[in-house]
């Protein structure tokens, strides 16, 4: 038998996991479904008020329980980004896009999402972007309920 006779076949593994999301992420996802972005109120070690987006159950710096959830803005600032020139299957957009950390208005932390800017030339750290939502009827309570962010001033 030659190497050309070695058998090959597709082998697909699927794990249909369903995670329990807990009270804080659950509230965040419920907010997304309802078209709102929520963060957790907390404090720095020096007492400065912070808002963690997406919210965590504990402050990542002080480990203290977080306070109430508050709604933050639907627009914010790109703090850093990376261009995805050749999107892969199951990535958020089928056309080239930017992965970006976005600090929403009213938030202290940046959250990872994607920016549909058309070209890396349209991307810069410090640029303002705004959320483009899926239609309400398609939102189920997951981060993809925000389809992407777009440069502020373009059609959301």
């Amino acid at each position, binding site marked *: 038998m030659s190497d050309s006779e070695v058998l090959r076949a597709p082998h*697909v593994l699927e794990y249909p996991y369903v995670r329990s999301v807990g009270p804080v992420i659950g509230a965040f996802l419920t907010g997304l479904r309802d078209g709102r972005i929520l963060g957790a109120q907390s404090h720095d070690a020096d007492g400065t008020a912070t808002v963690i987006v997406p919210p965590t159950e504990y402050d990542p710096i002080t480990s203290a329980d977080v306070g109430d959830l508050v709604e933050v803005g639907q627009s914010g600032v790109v703090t850093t980004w990376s261009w995805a020139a050749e999107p892969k299957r199951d990535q958020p957009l089928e056309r080239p896009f930017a992965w970006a950390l976005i600090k929403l208005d009213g938030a202290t932390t940046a959250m990872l999402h994607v920016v549909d800017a058309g070209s890396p030339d349209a991307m810069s750290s410090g640029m303002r972007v705004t959320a483009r939502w899926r239609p309400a009827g398609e*939102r189920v309570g997951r981060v993809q309920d925000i389809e992407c962010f777009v440069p502020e001033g373009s059609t959301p």
Partner: protein
Amino acid sequence: MSAEPVTTLATPMHLDYQYTAGLSQSRFLQGIAQGKFIGQRCPACHQVYVPPRGSCPTDGVATTDPIELGNSGTVTTYCVVNVPFQGQSIEIPYICAQILLDGANITFMGLIQELPADQVRMGLRVEAVWVDKDQLGLTMASVKYFRPTGEPDADYETFKAYS
């Protein structure tokens, strides 16, 4: 819009592999597609492995000689499955057994049918039941299951090294 709070998140994982069987398993599967079990013998210790992996785990040498094994074997140990689980395709209770094919020096797992689950035993002689000839393929699904041959049970001494 639902008013119920979100409590779960579906996070399915989907891993797309291309499995390459290698020379030894390819030969084995070519045999399966013809309704035969083909193992390999170690040139150093003369043990016969099925399915073959291409090398002897004891001697670390390549196993290149193909050996056609019989269609019958001996149950060395077994498990009666009574617990239902997601994706189960066989009606419970059913018997999952380690089978030592005649001429082989290693067992492999097989389904036992045509026998009430409470009658399975170590030493039971079984034979492979294959799918119809035109359904044979490069897959272990070509072996439908094993069933009792009706022969007397094998003497424990003949398989105790494998149980």
